[in-house]
């Protein structure tokens, strides 16, 4: 009995050590971000500890800074375009992987997922050479194409995972009830893939927003936000950068929370339903 109590509380040296370790990992991950946010309110620039003269000045400067907002607008455009391109190409690829049988399918599967592990430098460089050969002028358009290409694999993997979980009997039931293949796809398959598609879209959006390697090779006259920040850092760091990073961080956090709540709502419903089924199976069917 003693032993049981001991092992289940957090008083053993082992579990205490694990707690310390967990805290260390946590601070390793989040301390830099906390510092970054803190110094965006620091009146005396990025140096010195502890921060003095807490102020919103840097945010005021940031909101008046035209080039930063131009680059934010560029980045948002690129992210939406990348989202559209990679979903449009990635969803059919996932469908092909899930249900079509064709020679070379295993190879196709690996190749489609390759950009996910390929260094951005290689994707960027090869696209740059391609655009060179084609004589295309580098612009935001080339970055959009670059991000779109690099992120197809994200769309494909997310949607493919969703397809694997989909109960095929549902599609059969739809055909059985008189819906043709096209109607079945739009009425049954797509609604069931809503969550993976939204997830992929959010993931692609955030990945595109902070992508730097591919953008670096394909950049024209207009900067994306990460390249703008990077360019400014070479001229010295100011808390204005911290301020913009803080805004990006908050934005990402909100996106993640939205995504998480969507997921909980979708999956939680099923779970609760499962319990209800157990409870009511005897009482409700005696009618």
């Amino acid at each position, binding site marked *: 009995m003693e032993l049981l109590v001991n092992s289940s509380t957090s008083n053993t040296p082992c579990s205490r050590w694990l707690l310390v370790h967990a805290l260390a990992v946590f601070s390793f991950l989040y301390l830099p971000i906390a510092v970054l946010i803190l110094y965006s309110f620091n009146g005396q620039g990025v140096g010195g500890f502890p921060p003095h003269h807490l102020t919103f000045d840097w945010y005021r400067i940031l909101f008046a800074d035209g080039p930063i907002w131009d680059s934010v607008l560029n980045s948002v455009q690129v992210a939406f375009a990348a989202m559209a391109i990679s979903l449009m190409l990635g969803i059919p690829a996932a469908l092909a992987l899930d249900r079509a049988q064709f020679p070379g399918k295993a190879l196709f599967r690996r190749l489609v997922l390759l950009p996910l592990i390929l260094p951005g430098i290689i994707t960027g460089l090869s696209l740059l050479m391609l655009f060179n050969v084609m004589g295309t002028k580098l612009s935001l358009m080339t970055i959009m194409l670059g991000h779109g290409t690099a992120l197809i694999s994200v769309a494909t993997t997310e949607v493919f995972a969703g397809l694997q979980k989909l109960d095929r009997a549902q599609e059969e039931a739809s055909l059985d009830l008189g819906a043709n293949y096209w109607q079945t796809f739009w009425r049954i398959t797509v*609604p069931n893939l809503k969550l993976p598609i939204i997830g992929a879209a959010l993931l692609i959006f955030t990945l595109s927003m902070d992508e730097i390697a591919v953008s670096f090779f394909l950049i024209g006259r207009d900067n994306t936000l990460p390249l703008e920040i990077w360019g400014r850092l070479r001229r010295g760091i100011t808390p204005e950068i911290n301020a913009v990073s803080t805004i990006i961080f908050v934005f990402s956090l909100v996106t993640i929370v939205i995504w998480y709540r969507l997921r909980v709502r979708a999956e939680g419903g099923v779970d609760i339903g499962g319990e209800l089924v157990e409870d009511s*199976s005897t009482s409700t069917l005696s009618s």
Partner: protein
Amino acid sequence: MASPIPPTIAVSASAQSAAKPALLSIQHVAKSFGRNAVLRNVSLEIAEGEFLTILGESGSGKTTLLRIVAGFETATSGELWMGPERLDHQPPYRRRVNTVFQSYALFPHLTVEENVGYGLRVAKRPAAEIAQRVAEALDKVKMTAHAKAKPSKISGGQQQRVALARALVNRPRLLLLDEPLSALDANLRRQMQVELKSLQREVGIAFVFVTHDQEEAMVMSDRIALLRSGELEQVATPREIYSRPATAYVAQFIGHTNLLKGEVQGGIVRCAALAWPAPLPEGPVLLSLRPEHVRLAGPGASGTGVVRIRGRVMHQAFHGATELIRVECADRLLLVVRTASGGVVQSEVELEFSAADAVQVRESPERI
């Protein structure tokens, strides 16, 4: 407004079903997955308004046959005809056949009501007609109270009713049911067997019901088609399949039986120490004798055509209303006897049965 489902059809469908015109004709259907033959040369006719059960063990090919009729699988060879129309060339959505799936396959993103109305919406029926037919179908399966619920919020038995309503609301000519009761517990299952059977009579639509449960098949069906390793072993009414099993497999699969291996010589059947006259062709013979046809013999002589034998009681199993007694007779012949429950049986018993109750069955051919 006309009722959504045709009015009650004569209840005496069972006996005459064979005489009615065939609704669906399955002709020489075979199906292989790679080198694995799942169905070989299955021919079967389903009559209008009939309740036909495809009975078989798992792996017998019964679900595959159902999926071929629904259109989810293509037969390797053979044809399907619905009246003058060749069915197997039609995609599933053009067949006037609906399915109740084993997993029910309700659409999780739609409410009960929307699930039931799915087929009508796809067929672009007017909204008022959809609303009315859905309401009537839900009423028929007593699910009106749950019309606005999502499928995940209702019980398994309720989901099953919704799946049934979703299929029937389209007024199919044929309803396919793939082990729809297998997920329910025993009590609910028995109740649903009765309900399903009376619903079928009420709507008058032909049902093809797939199950591995022989009791379920006996209770519900007008006819049973017994499938074994991809071939039909026998197609007959429950009574016929029970009292006149075609093969040893049928006799053993449906109920208990004693299989007697013997020899016919000059009109006399000889089996172990037993011998009785029977009008059977010369040569080896296989006979099925149901346990309830064997009695504990009373004192005194038996009538004509009755075979008597003594034996030692090996085992006695209580089954409620009846008991199964295992008796070892001379020459190691084992007989199982079903008697009404009550009283202790002595260790030595005298048994008798009518020679006519030992029916000849064919040896079931080996199939892999």
